[in-house]
């Protein structure tokens, strides 16, 4: 599936700025962003529920820009599932096949197969209202998949589930995707969900895609402070770029009162105000004798890991995380340092 300059405006407001995006065959692509970032708009353009203000949309070689949803052969899973309340589970799943006027025996066979796939074999005759949220979610998925859609679209499908169930369904979705390799576009604002499920993630903000990449790329090489802040936890410290050479930059870090060479994001140039990204697991305590003097102001025991908050001599605070070590105590004075090669300097926006 491919978007070519697709855009959507409501009057003067651009819900989606002109966007190019290609989802490869069999790829699981997640659109990740806060509400209002344009991810649902993009999904609705893919589905055909919205008409783009500009640009074209292709499914394979087919230009579907002007086709209504019913002619696109897409499978959509809605946020609150949108299951038909007046039909049984089986009738819901059969719906797309029934309106395609397929022969009854084939419909029955495919519905049974789809229900088996989502592990609801014996639920066909049930009424929708009798199902739990997680079961409804799986019916919605079966209904979307049974028509063998060219693209599967999901709009925050796990949003209504509680945390534990969500974890479980995530793994289920991943299993199904690995088995069938169906091209999927998935919308969420939950970064963990995005990382668990996706081949690639498009991080969106204010109607455009900020960065497109694999989970590791987004985590290790965010293009700016927004993406860095949105994916995983991070310390983002003000820093000034002194010079740039290749993939590295020399920066002054006011918070540390020192200069350093660190990997740099694209587009930075000497003199820029930027942000130094240090992931909590890259903050080290008492490893280097010439580390920065700091005080532990908080210790949070998380089980396997322990998180801690450091206050530097400059007054700046930094979060760190390490394998639990009972010796860390609040009020301790320590020498703090950071893994330079894992840090990254990014534009501040």
């Amino acid at each position, binding site marked *: 599936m491919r978007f070519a300059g697709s855009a959507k405006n409501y009057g003067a407001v651009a819900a989606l700025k002109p966007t190019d995006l290609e989802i490869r065959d069999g790829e699981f692509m997640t659109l990740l962003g806060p509400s209002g970032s344009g991810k649902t708009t993009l999904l609705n353009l893919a589905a*055909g*529920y919205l008409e783009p203000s500009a640009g074209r949309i292709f499914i394979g070689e087919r230009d579907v820009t002007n086709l*209504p*949803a*019913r002619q696109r052969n897409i499978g959509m899973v809605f946020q609150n599932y949108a299951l038909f309340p007046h039909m049984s589970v089986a009738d819901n799943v059969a719906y797309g096949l029934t309106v395609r006027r397929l022969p009854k025996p084939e419909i029955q066979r495919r519905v049974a197969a789809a229900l088996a796939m989502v592990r609801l074999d014996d639920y066909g005759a049930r009424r929708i209202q009798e199902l739990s949220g997680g079961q409804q979610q799986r019916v919605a998925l079966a209904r979307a998949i049974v028509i063998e859609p060219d693209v599967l679209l999901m709009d925050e499908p796990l949003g209504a589930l509680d945390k534990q169930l969500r974890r479980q369904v995530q793994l289920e979705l991943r299993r199904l995707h690995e088995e069938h390799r169906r091209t999927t576009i998935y919308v969420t604002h939950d970064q963990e969900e995005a990382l668990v499920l996706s081949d690639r993630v498009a991080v969106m903000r204010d109607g455009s895609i900020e960065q497109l990449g694999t989970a590791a790329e987004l985590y290790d090489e965010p293009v700016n402070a927004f993406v860095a802040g949105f994916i995983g936890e991070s310390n983002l410290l003000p820093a000034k770029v002194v010079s740039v050479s290749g993939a590295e930059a020399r920066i002054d870090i006011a918070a540390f009162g020192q200069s350093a060479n660190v990997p740099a994001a694209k587009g930075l140039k000497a003199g820029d105000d930027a942000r130094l990204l240090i992931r909590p697991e890259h903050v080290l305590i008492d490893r280097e004798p010439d580390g920065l003097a700091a005080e532990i102001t908080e210790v949070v025991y998380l089980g396997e890991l322990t998180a801690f908050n450091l206050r530097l001599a400059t007054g700046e605070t930094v979060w760190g995380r390490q394998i639990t070590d009972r010796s860390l105590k609040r009020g301790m004075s320590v020498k703090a340092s950071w893994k330079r090669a894992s840090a990254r300097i990014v534009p501040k926006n």
Partner: protein
Amino acid sequence: MSKSPLWLRLLAQISAGLVLAFLCLPILAVIPASFNQASFITLPPVAYSGRWYEAFISDPEWRQALFASLHVAVIATIVAVVTGTAAALGLHRLTGRSRGILTGLFLAPMIVPVIVTAVAVYRSALDVGLSGTPLGLGLAHALLALPFVVINVGIALRGVEENWLRAAAGLGAGPWRIFRTVTLPNIAPGIVGGAIFSFITSFDEVVVAVFLAGYANKTLPVKIWESIRLEFTPVVAVAATLMIVLAIVLFAVAQLLSKSGKKQPI
């Protein structure tokens, strides 16, 4: 979602417009008919005049009918509002079976066909000597209006949160004071709405009135009813026009009140 095609939207709009016209316009036919110069009803009138309005005002029978209607409507409204509001407050405190049964009883006058109620009430009114009196007809109309008061006040009561009452009690207010300062102000729009509806219900009512009004206490609708069957002159159109005007005024008042009370239109 994908829009429905233009022809479908046009079809819906045009047919809805026609049905709405069918619903509203015919009602207004009596207005031009009431300004007729001729001594029989024609539409449109050949020439316009106010002579039938003069006839209406100068005829003691029509005047008396108008006052009888107002008299009866006032009795009906007072009885329905007082008993209905108290009943709604009582129902609100009940739960379970007793609530269901009593709700059924209070709404029953709405479900029983009016002709049945009319005949039954007429028979008993004859026996106790209330037939032909404003009180008898007022009570009968209160019967028909009661469900509307119970429903309206009941809806308003649902908007009064239990925690407001707890808060007032916690601040030291007694039950009567809580009712007066918290409950009543919040259900007042419902009571007024119920009162207006009671009034118009009584003022418009014919079936019970035809049986119960008697000779001395003919209400306006009864007088209209008889005149339609006997003479069919434009003076009937005048009376009908007056009833429309009154209904529009009350309708407007009710809408204004329901806006200020943030409720659905009645």
